[in-house]
């Protein structure tokens, strides 16, 4: 399974860039297996005014097999999932589901407060809510009118 570190920039659309790159890779390699973009797990990031929500699909990964850590503006997801162990006289007809361990590191757009982080694993979907660190919040500077 893929093991990589991701840094994404928030000023432009990374999604578009990735798709462009993917198209170019496709043209270049033809039908070769595309290991290059095999990032696991895929994440979606929802941005709010004071918090952000990261969701990811990790079917079959149980709570005890998941390790989530936050430090400053870096989020690390670690986990693993085993395959069914087959006994004697048992054979695979088809094996498409990946198994093994994964590590994914994401750089968040701001520092988050580790004490105010919520993680929920439901139906194989992990939802993480991360609050912006108090000290990091932008402060409004009132402008005084001159008398």
């Amino acid at each position: 399974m893929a093991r990589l570190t991701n840094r994404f920039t928030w000023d432009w659309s990374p999604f578009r860039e990735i798709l462009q790159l993917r198209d170019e890779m496709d043209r270049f390699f033809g039908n070769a297996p595309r290991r290059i973009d095999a990032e696991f797990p895929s994440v979606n990031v929802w941005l709010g005014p004071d918090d952000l929500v990261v969701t990811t699909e990790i079917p079959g990964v149980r709570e005890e097999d998941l390790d989530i850590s936050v430090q400053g503006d870096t989020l690390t997801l670690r986990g693993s999932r085993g395959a069914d162990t087959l006994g004697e006289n048992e054979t695979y007809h088809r094996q498409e589901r990946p198994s093994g361990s994964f590590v994914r590191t994401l750089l968040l757009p701001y520092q988050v407060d580790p004490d105010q982080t919520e993680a929920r694993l439901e139906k194989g979907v992990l939802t993480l809510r991360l609050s912006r660190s108090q000290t990091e919040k932008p402060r409004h500077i009132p402008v005084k009118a001159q008398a």
Partner: protein
Amino acid sequence: MANMQTKQAQSTDMQKTEAQTDAPMERTRSRRVFIPRTDIYERPDALVVVADMPGVDQNSVDVNVEKRVLTIAGRVESASSDQRRLSYAEYQTGDYERSFALSDEVDVSKIEASVSHGVLRIVLPKAAEAQPRRIAVTAG
């Protein structure tokens, strides 16, 4: 994404595989449909189908056998939020659908299915006459 057009989900690709748009039948729900990544293995007494369907639970999955075709379908409600906007997206959500032709040896009346952590598991017991039987050979 030229090489994602094959019907079978590719094990080398970590992304979800979307079902083809030129499917023989149109769908009533205007949602994306993905082909769940599936393992199938055979035990002496049964066939086991394991499918990754994140976002699906026991209330939103359908397992059907009709004319010896096993169809699995899952509905996933789209994620949305009033307070937050989707600012970075690597995956999309949608329903799941996939069908498999079954051989005659499956006992359709004894099929069992369960869902846990977004993984659907179906056990299809073989009919008694299809199960391997050891024939004792005696010395004559």
